[in-house]
């Protein structure tokens, strides 16, 4: 923005900050993904270089029954989940928006919990609940086999839909917010009844929101690794993400197949996201966005809808979580659920200092704090640069961020296996594969684009004139950033830190594919427990990790609250030395600040 004769600030910024960041993104995201693509096209890449071009690996995955079925299943699961989440999510959004049920805050809380809980925690909960001698069989005293339907495609799609419906819900809720009541009232005056109004007027107007949410659900379901890793070993249904994992765990590793499967997965997701973008970009959507007058509430909440909503929320979240918690308290999973069979022994074991679980927890905590710190700090800086500085380098940065945001974790992790294990890295001692640092880099690669995007959204909310006002009144770019931008986006930056932290604590694909054998992070240990039929130990460690994450959140909130109080009492003291506080002021500045936050 500022030009001067020799090295302008903008040029220095580019040289010192933007280009290094581009290099980091290239190394962390583009290089691994590129090596996947090349590996699938040049099967002997690491031995013979670019000599041998072949599409063999692509034709193979469609010839081999297992991989072919995995791709078909992924599409089936994605499609099925998209349909069911559309129904559940739309209905819930309408009920909540029109206030047909009691307790909308509770609903909001539960929906966000479902949205942010890592899918493999929920998936494991379902498995513990539904398997032979599982919690539900024991609790309801059912004969084994009664719940086997859960481990069929139908059951899986149901469970996945209960995990993913918040995506549609949030999309439709936003659409309803812009719908207003004019269209509906026009239909009523024309003689349409309640049902006709919904079917002919409101639902068609909401279609873009529903479809946009459904395509996102589809992409999420296809790229999900948590459900696959928890349920596939029990249900024996091939799934695309899991087939990438198995191909990497074969001896010898079938690298070209991993590459081809990853490219197919990315392709499916790219197409669905492109469709979503196209749906949202169509003109019809803007019609309902221009409505300002909100809907008038006609009928109050009812018991029937309240029950329906709560049954849905219980099934979506509380049921699988109960599965985990009850299992963690059982002396041995598979035994009857009686008081005598309950114990805290597994927690004690997990918390034993120096024990395997405790060490894994410590390791994951360190990795997560490191990931969250760097990813959040780098993210806010890059988001600021992308939104404020124009030029080729920032455009490149933006494109890199946005195009890597939807890459499934399993593909990125597989890319790290290729990219940081290559023979040509040996002379430079850059074979990072098999080190904890490699796991850390993969966590960072997965979280950085999200961090940038979240904080870009927050920066986009700040009116540009607030920043111009800073400059005009004598602040340079650095002061504007520190004094105006940072305080205004602090809430988002802190949430970003926390989200990145909790995501890294539960990060599954990169942990599974990249962990050093003697230093497993927490998710790997949990999965090991489950696979070794030590369900109760796995469940206890899961609950502990959730508690650690929740405790960190609580502590962080407390710290922030304290800091805010101190800052304000200092500020008020400083000012009131000079003047009497306005006697007509109805709200104290402290309350005002709390409202603003």
């Amino acid at each position: 923005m500022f030009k001067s004769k020799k090295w302008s600030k903008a040029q220095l910024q580019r040289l010192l900050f933007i280009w290094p960041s581009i290099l980091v993104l290239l190394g962390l995201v583009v290089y691994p993904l590129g090596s996947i693509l090349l590996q699938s096209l040049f099967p002997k890449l690491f031995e013979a270089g670019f000599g041998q071009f072949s599409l063999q690996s692509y034709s193979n995955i469609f010839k081999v029954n297992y991989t072919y079925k995995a791709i078909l299943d992924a599409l089936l699961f994605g499609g099925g989940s998209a349909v069911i989440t559309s129904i559940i999510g739309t209905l819930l959004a309408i009920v909540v928006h029109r206030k047909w049920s009691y307790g909308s805050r509770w609903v909001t809380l539960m929906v966000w919990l479902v949205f942010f809980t890592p899918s493999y925690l929920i998936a494991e909960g379902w498995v513990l609940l539904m398997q032979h001698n599982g919690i539900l069989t024991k609790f309801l005293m059912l004969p084994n086999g009664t719940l086997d339907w859960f481990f069929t495609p139908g059951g899986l799609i149901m469970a996945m839909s209960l995990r993913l419906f918040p995506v549609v819900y949030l999309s439709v809720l936003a659409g309803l917010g812009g719908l207003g009541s004019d269209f509906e009232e026009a239909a009523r005056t024309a003689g349409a009844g309640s049902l006709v109004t919904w079917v002919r007027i409101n639902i068609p107007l909401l279609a873009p929101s529903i479809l946009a949410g459904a395509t996102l659900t589809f992409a999420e379901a296809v790229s999900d690794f948590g459900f696959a890793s928890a349920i596939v070993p029990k249900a024996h249904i091939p799934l695309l993400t899991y087939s990438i994992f198995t191909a990497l765990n074969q001896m010898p590793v079938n690298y070209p197949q991993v590459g081809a499967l990853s490219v197919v997965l990315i392709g499916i997701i790219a197409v669905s996201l492109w469709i979503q973008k196209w749906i949202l970009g169509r003109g019809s959507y803007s019609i309902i966005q221009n409505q300002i007058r909100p809907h008038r509430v006609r009928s109050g909440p009812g018991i029937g809808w309240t029950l329906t909503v709560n049954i849905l929320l219980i099934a979506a979240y509380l049921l699988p979580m109960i599965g985990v918690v009850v299992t963690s308290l059982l002396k041995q999973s598979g035994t009857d659920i009686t008081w005598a069979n309950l114990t805290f022994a597994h927690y004690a074991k997990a918390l034993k200092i120096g024990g395997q679980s405790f060490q894994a927890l410590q390791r994951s905590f360190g990795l997560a704090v490191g990931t969250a710190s760097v990813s959040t700090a780098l993210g806010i800086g890059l988001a600021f640069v992308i939104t404020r500085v124009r030029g080729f380098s920032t455009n490149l940065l933006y494109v890199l961020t946005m195009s890597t945001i939807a890459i499934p974790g399993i593909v990125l992790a597989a890319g790290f296996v290729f990219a940081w294990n290559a023979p040509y890295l040996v002379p430079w001692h850059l074979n990072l594969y098999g080190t904890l640092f490699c796991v850390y880099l993969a966590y960072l690669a997965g979280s950085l684009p999200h961090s940038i995007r979240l904080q870009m959204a927050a920066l986009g909310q700040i009116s540009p004139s607030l920043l111009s006002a800073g400059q005009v009144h004598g602040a340079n770019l650095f002061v504007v950033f520190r004094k105006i931008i940072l305080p205004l986006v602090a809430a988002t930056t802190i949430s970003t830190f926390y989200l990145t932290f909790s995501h890294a604590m539960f990060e599954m694909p990169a942990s599974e594919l990249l962990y050093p054998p003697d230093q497993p992070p927490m998710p790997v240990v949990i999965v090991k427990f489950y696979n070794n039929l030590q369900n109760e130990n796995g469940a206890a460690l899961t609950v502990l990790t959730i508690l650690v994450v929740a405790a960190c959140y609580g502590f962080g909130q407390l710290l922030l609250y304290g800091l805010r109080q101190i800052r304000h009492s200092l500020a008020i003291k400083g000012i009131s030395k000079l003047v009497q506080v306005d006697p007509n002021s109805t709200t104290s500045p402290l309350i005002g600040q709390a409202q603003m936050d």
Partner: protein
Amino acid sequence: MGLQINSVYKKYDNKQVLSGINVSVEDGTFLALLGPSGCGKTTLLQTIAGLTPIDGGQILIDNQVVSQAGYELPTEKRNIGMVFQDFALWPHMTVYENVAFGLKLRGVKGAEARQRVQETLGIFHMESYITRFPHELSGGQKQRVAMARAIAPKPRLILMDEPLSSLDAGLRDEMRSELARIFKQLGMTVVYVTHDQLEALSMADQIAVMRTGQCEQYGTPEQVYHEPVSDYVAKFMGPATIVRVNAEYGWFVRPDDIQLQRVDSADSPASSESDYQTAVGIVALRSYQGNRYRYFVNVPEYQTPIEVNYPAKLQPGERVRLLFPTVKCRPIRLINEAGSTPDSSVSV
């Protein structure tokens, strides 16, 4: 010399927004940049602030070059104050912190800063709101704080971008006269962007009427109102009757200057026939304005109706005589700009 803008050019993508604009004002002048949306007035303000770089020409503040092609003195070093259309008060800072922001960055701290903040807020009667946050203030109060923030560091130039446009009509009138008084007292150089000709006429010392990136006319409020150089300026400054003489030139008269007489009444024609041009027409439309009526009179010689004000109620269809005072009918250049007020223009 307070501010000099020497043939400044600015292009966005392929659109020429400023094409060689020239304006200079002395210290202590209240300058209004007036024009319809899209004429480049806000862009010009942004270039003065240094928020937008220029492609050609020069901008000087106090004889110091602050902008020219390839060189921009950073905004924060220009020592200016600015009031934004949306106020742009920082929502996380109190009124005190907002106003003290610029002072602290200029090294004014401690007791002196407090005193300056107090004094400045006092000018706008806002000293008792010092601990409030922007969201606890009304629109007018925010406006006053924004003004105080801009002038607290005593900058050499104050820039204002339609500062009154987000206030409601009553408050706008009140603020208009108050602001004009305050800035006159402070003796500050002000550049004030507006699309409201009443605001410009009532507040400014000098008005620059802008059109498509150029200054169409520069002068005192009286000059631009009574002696517009073109039909564009004439129509922008208020209702005007424009009579075309040829393709390029014509003459204009304000409706208030035209005298109307009933043809069948006993009113005698004007004292001296040579002081007036006369025409006879038929009342076509009447609209009540409260203190008078506005009429559109069809005159056979002219193609479109002529706008004129008259205190008494006439019936449509009545024959009237119009008297155009020769001294008030001024020659002007015709631009034939689309989008102005066509109902008051007349072609011969």
